[in-house]
């Protein structure tokens, strides 16, 4: 799952009700909170998307300040839980959830958000390597073994192997010499001190 969901509402009945519906429709366990206090502790930065369902009576300014501080890779979407539908909100409104909404209305509202979250963010994340993965590619290109890479980066061999697996998945390049070409084309290797052709 690329998304996680937080529900913030003072009413236990509302919290449990939304939990039950979200769990059964999307098979996601939402985190339930009564106030904004511990919100930051429940944010999972490994996900690409955070959906917050927040009671309209909460301090909206505080809420937006908190969400602005989240990591940039985490796309955050807020939906307001309202006592009554706003007169200006019709059925197609994508940011309000009135308490009298039906189960199907709730899933209609959430489904496209989850779908959106799993697509474009994944693409963006796949297109670039993390700093650590870049270090690993560079060392692979220089002909180092997994053991040497682990030692140089102070990580376990197991971690090196899992980095390599992720690198191959992201780049679509499997062979060592292919990764070396990637590293040279992307200037990860100082080609002034090393003849790049000698590495392939």
């Amino acid at each position, binding site marked *: 799952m690329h998304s996680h969901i937080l529900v913030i509402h003072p009413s236990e009945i509302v919290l449990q009700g939304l939990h039950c519906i979200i769990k059964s429709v999307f098979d996601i366990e939402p985190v339930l909170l009564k106030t904004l206090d511990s919100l930051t502790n429940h944010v999972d930065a490994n996900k690409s998307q955070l959906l917050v369902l927040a009671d309209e009576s909460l301090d909206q300014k505080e809420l937006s300040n908190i969400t602005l501080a989240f990591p940039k890779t985490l796309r955050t979407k807020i939906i307001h839980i309202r006592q009554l539908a706003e007169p200006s909100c019709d059925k197609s409104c994508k940011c309000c959830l009135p308490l009298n909404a039906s189960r199907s209305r709730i899933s209609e509202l959430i489904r496209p958000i989850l779908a959106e979250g799993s697509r474009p963010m994944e693409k963006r994340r796949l297109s670039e390597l993390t700093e650590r993965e870049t270090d690993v590619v560079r060392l692979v290109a220089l002909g180092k073994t997994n053991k040497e890479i682990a030692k140089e980066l102070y990580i376990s061999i197991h971690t090196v192997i899992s980095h390599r697996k992720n690198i191959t998945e992201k780049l*679509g*390049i499997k*062979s060592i*010499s*292919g990764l070396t*070409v*990637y590293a040279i*084309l992307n200037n990860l290797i100082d080609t002034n001190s090393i003849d790049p052709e000698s590495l*392939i």
Partner: protein
Amino acid sequence: MELFDKNTKMTALVHSNHLLLPVLNRFGLRLGFQEKTVEEICTEEQIDLNFFLAIVNAYHHHDYSPENELKSISAKLIIDYLRKSHLDFLKVSMPKIEAALDKMVKNRKSNDLKIIQKFYSTYKEEFVEHIQDEEEHAFPYVLALQKAHDQKTNPLPKSLAEYSISDYEKDHGDVDVKLFDLKNLIIKYLKPDYRDQDCNEFLYELFHFERDVQDHARIEDQILVTKVLEIEKELKNA
């Protein structure tokens, strides 16, 4: 999946997949098919009909595996075809790829295609070595085994009894991986100072070659090796 059969017009076969043209050449077929069917042409040219159909169908339909149709085909016929394919790769496909790559390098300012060229040449080295290995070791072993089988040689000479096709026919994974990487390096990471037509030409050749090589490896792994393992089982249990 609609398979080609003996009544398919040879012309229709080419229309439905022009990539089969080099495959037809490996059987010694030339154009000018008129209204003739596969069966008519195979009879005229003294080509084994079942073998021909198995090969073109396997090429055209990726999930079609003609193991049963090929049980009766001699290993010699299969190896003949594989040898012709090897020759095609070395004398036609690879020179075409190299010419396209040279052209691409020549028309560019930056240096990074030199790296791609180097990568290609290491790939080629491995690929050629794989082919030589088959020509010099795997194929002669299979032919000798088939002969011993046909002549009911007993006991088997040591050179046959102590080996198995699995000692000879190496995994195709490594070679495939490099070809795949080569495509991705170009498609995903090339800096855009190349001429479109040069790069397209190179990629067309590469995609076509990959398809040919995959088909070839499939015939070796699924058809030749399967067949030889059966002969081995029969001979060595006797």
